[in-house]
């Protein structure tokens, strides 16, 4: 029961400014002060401008994989095209292998661990046993063979040009190098070699293996922010011709299309590949039995695999004699994309069952939300790297146990990581964002699309990221950064760049814009920036421009602050119209009085004999007067009052209408739409979805009016858990007792769990 308050009808509207005092910070102010000024390269609507440009670098590379000493020996000819309006006097290249130089910044900036328990891996770096990683760079020469001056600044190399490279001109130069490949057991990373002691063989996953052109762009000039190990890459598109020489019993998986299958594959393997192009299921190109037999071989020489890749921003490959290989053609809008997986026997039965299916599933779902996959190949490789993406190829770690059984966590870890890493082909391999600066711009978008793809793999897929309720713990914590934090600085990269961004985009889609508007705008962003380099502002602006919605408050709150969502229903008041009509009002007041509770003393006193009953002369006017009698003067006053209003205005004085005022308080700071599920006393329900703009004049406290002829029984805020509200205990009116996680656990534990009993009996195994 709530108290009824009278709502007086008034003629003049109140001054709104006096009623709602603006809270100090306007959370809806436009982002102009933060976003870069639009120009001819990047428009105010978030699209590439009419003078948009980007550089291009084509590579011609010979590389040898040394399986005896675990090293890479390479030579490249790089053709750099200056499409910028600027003359360049030097070129910058990235030397990522140099993070494994004994004195790299990655090592030197590492802070001290616990002195009482010093991890042996960190300790090794300080001792003689240190890994002698890093590039040995030979002379850099121009096309005529003249040596060019070079300067190496840790993970970056500057090549000084003999004359400034004019706009529209190209420059060809050569460089050779070698480096030792990191053993992933000792030093893990995005690339490395894994040794299998039982059969004495290695799997190589080779990436960041050649001097790569640093990006030069309209926003940052040269992007030569040093590589410290976290912020990934910023690269230019180009065509690659790569000749990979490996032991002749190796199978090589690579970015690009194999140019010489006749020289490196057997007739049987080529035949199987042809079959796979139109197959309905993955076809084995190298069977598990063949791969196991291959493990015992000794190379009789070397083989050179030639790959060509067009319009890619990077190039990676994997090589081993342990690889089984399966493939299946995927129809990408009338074009066949070869989805292929490479894995050792240690990866089965998981890999043969799930990897290639997950690749094709990813291409299907991601293409629907972005653009048709443009490359001819999509590969997933099992080796030492836990999960890392490159154009057309990615490396994924999960494997079953030695006894060939695996847990649910391992199974879903594999499916999810394949979706994620194959998904990176779209962001950032094709929509080429700057990973060194903004991890979230590819990882967050990719994790969001991963969630959509997982939702279509099977019902109730155990996704790690996407559902708003899952980000609540992170949003509550104090290691919580704004999303707009540089890649190397973020404290919890997974929680922030991946998880928070993915959830924010999901909330934007489901709660703020709705699927239709979001999907259109998001697809437009992908289309506009396909094979181009977007910046955060281009995403923000495109999403607003294409959806027709001012989202500055959303970007400001979710991307530029570390506030969280916590909205509370503080109070609900019931108002009804004060008709001023004494006939109506006195009757209502009388009814109210009659329903007021009778006190205990009054109840007990009621049967007692009263003095006035024995002496009627004590009764006077006041004993007989009914306070609810309508007096003529009151009637008269009402008639005068009512004349102020027009005839149609008078009809609004309906006393049966209830006005509920719901007081909402913003405790967390983020402004968000208000979603209220209202339950009425007659058992009916209604849902009210109010845009975030309800907070625009006062972002700390607002009152929302619900007008109804029914009586409200209860109100629930955010009934579908779609806003990541960190405290749901204040989301109910009247307040409800919320069971604690602890209570729920104890109750569940006492119940019989048929799932658990069945699960113990049914263990996944390789017998299938």
């Amino acid at each position, binding site marked *: 029961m709530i108290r009824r308050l009278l709502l007086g009808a008034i003629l003049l509207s109140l001054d709104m400014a006096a009623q709602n005092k603006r809270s100090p910070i306007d959370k809806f102010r436009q982002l102009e002060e933060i976003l870069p000024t639009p120009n001819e390269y990047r428009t105010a609507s978030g699209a590439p401008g009419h003078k948009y440009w980007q550089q291009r670098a084509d590579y011609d590379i010979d590389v040898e994989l040394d399986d005896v000493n675990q090293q890479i020996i390479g030579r490249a000819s790089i053709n750099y095209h200056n499409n910028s309006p600027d003359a360049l006097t030097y070129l910058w290249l990235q030397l990522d292998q140099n993070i494994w130089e004994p004195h790299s910044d990655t090592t030197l900036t590492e802070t001290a*661990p*616990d*002195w*009482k*328990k*010093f*991890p*042996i*891996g*960190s*300790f090794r770096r300080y001792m003689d046993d240190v890994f002698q990683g890093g590039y040995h760079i030979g002379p850099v020469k121009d096309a005529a063979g003249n040596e060019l001056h070079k300067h190496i600044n840790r993970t970056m190399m500057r090549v000084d040009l003999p004359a400034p490279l004019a706009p529209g001109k190209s420059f060809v130069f050569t460089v050779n190098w070698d480096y030792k490949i990191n053993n992933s057991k000792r030093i*893990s*990373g*995005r690339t490395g070699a894994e040794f299998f002691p039982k059969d004495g063989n290695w799997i190589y996953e080779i990436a960041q293996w050649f001097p790569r052109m640093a990006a030069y762009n309209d926003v940052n000039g040269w992007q030569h922010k040093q590589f410290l*190990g*976290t912020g990934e890459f910023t690269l230019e598109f180009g065509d690659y011709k790569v000749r990979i020489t490996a032991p002749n019993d190796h199978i090589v998986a690579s970015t690009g299309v194999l140019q010489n299958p006749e020289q490196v594959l057997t007739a049987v393997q080529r035949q199987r590949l042809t079959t796979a192009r139109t197959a309905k299921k993955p076809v084995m190109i190298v069977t598990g039995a063949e791969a196991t037999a291959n493990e015992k071989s000794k190379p009789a020489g070397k083989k050179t695999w030639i790959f060509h890749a067009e319009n890619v921003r990077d190039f990676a490959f994997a090589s081993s004699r342990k690889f089984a290989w399966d493939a299946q053609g995927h129809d990408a809008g009338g074009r066949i994309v070869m989805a292929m997986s490479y894995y050792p026997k240690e990866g089965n039965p998981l890999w043969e069952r799930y990897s290639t299916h997950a690749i094709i599933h990813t291409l299907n779902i991601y293409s629907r939300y972005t653009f048709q996959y443009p490359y001819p190949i999509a590969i997933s490789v099992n080796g030492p790297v*836990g999960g*890392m993406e490159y154009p057309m190829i990615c490396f994924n770690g999960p494997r079953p*146990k*030695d006894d060939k059984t*695996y*847990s*649910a*966590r*391992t199974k*879903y*870890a594999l499916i999810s990581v394949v979706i994620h890493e194959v998904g990176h082909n779209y962001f950032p391999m094709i929509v080429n964002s700057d990973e060194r600066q903004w991890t979230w711009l590819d990882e967050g978008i990719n994790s969001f699309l991963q969630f959509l793809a997982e939702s279509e793999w099977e019902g109730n897929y*155990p*996704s*790690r990221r996407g559902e708003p309720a899952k980000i609540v*713990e992170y949003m509550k*914590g*104090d*290691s919580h950064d704004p999303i707009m934090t540089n890649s190397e600085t973020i*404290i*919890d*990269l*997974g*929680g922030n760049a*991946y998880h928070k961004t993915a959830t924010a985009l999901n909330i934007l889609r489901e709660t703020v814009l709705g699927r239709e508007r979001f999907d259109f705008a998001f697809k437009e962003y992908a289309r506009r920036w396909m094979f181009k380099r977007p910046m955060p502002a281009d995403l923000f602006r495109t999403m607003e421009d294409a959806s027709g919605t001012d989202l500055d408050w959303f970007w400001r709150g979710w991307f530029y602050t570390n506030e969280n969502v916590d909205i509370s229903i503080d109070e609900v008041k019931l108002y009804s119209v004060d008709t001023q009509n004494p006939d109506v009002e006195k009757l209502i007041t009388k009814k109210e009085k009659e329903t007021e509770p009778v006190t205990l003393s009054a109840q007990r006193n009621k049967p007692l004999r009263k003095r006035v009953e024995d002496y009627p002369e004590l009764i006077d006017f006041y004993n007989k007067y009914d306070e609810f009698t309508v007096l003529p003067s009151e009637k008269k006053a009402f008639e005068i009052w009512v004349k102020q209003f027009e005839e149609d205005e008078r009809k609004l004085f309906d006393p049966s209408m209830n006005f509920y005022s719901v007081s909402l308080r913003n405790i967390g700071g983020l402004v968000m739409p208000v979603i209220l599920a209202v339950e009425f006393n007659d058992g009916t329900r209604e849902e009210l979805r109010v845009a975030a703009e309800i907070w625009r004049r006062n972002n700390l406290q607002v009152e929302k009016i619900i007008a109804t002829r029914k009586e409200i029984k209860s109100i629930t805020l955010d009934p579908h858990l779609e806003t990541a509200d960190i405290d749901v*205990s204040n989301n109910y009116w009247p307040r409800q007792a919320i069971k*604690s*996680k*602890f209570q729920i*656990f*104890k109750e569940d*534990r006492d119940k019989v769990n048929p799932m658990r009993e069945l699960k*113990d009996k049914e*263990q996944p195994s390789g017998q299938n």
Partner: protein
Amino acid sequence: MRCLMLLAAFVFPAEAHQFHYSKTEINWNTAAKTLEIIATLHADDIEAVLRKTHAQLEVDRDKQAESLVCAYVLKSFELRSVRPRCLGMKVGRDFIDVFLEARVEAPPKSLRNRILIEQIAGQRNDVELKKDGKLLGPRIQFNTSEIRKDLRW
């Protein structure tokens, strides 16, 4: 002064994207006179640590996993003059929740929280104190240089 530096044989395979932390909530239920403790750990981290002694252990599948995780948490999470018992755990994709309970007349005055700190470089443990479900102050942080802290109720 010469300090001794001990070498730990265990090396965690550095995942490129992982921030190693745990969060523990201690709720003092004054009516029931109990401490209700939920320790939330990265499943991969605790799994990797337990695999040093139990090769290829899978926390969501192996029968002995629950007792191993419980034993580990009970050993690493020492409340002054309170001995909780482990009720069990719940395993998710990313995290494991471990549930501990203790009967208390008064809440403990201090905590030594060494969860994963000696095994994983950079591990950080946050603790949240609650009284009857109401949060008391900001999270308390434990790391390699601060293992023991006083608890204010």
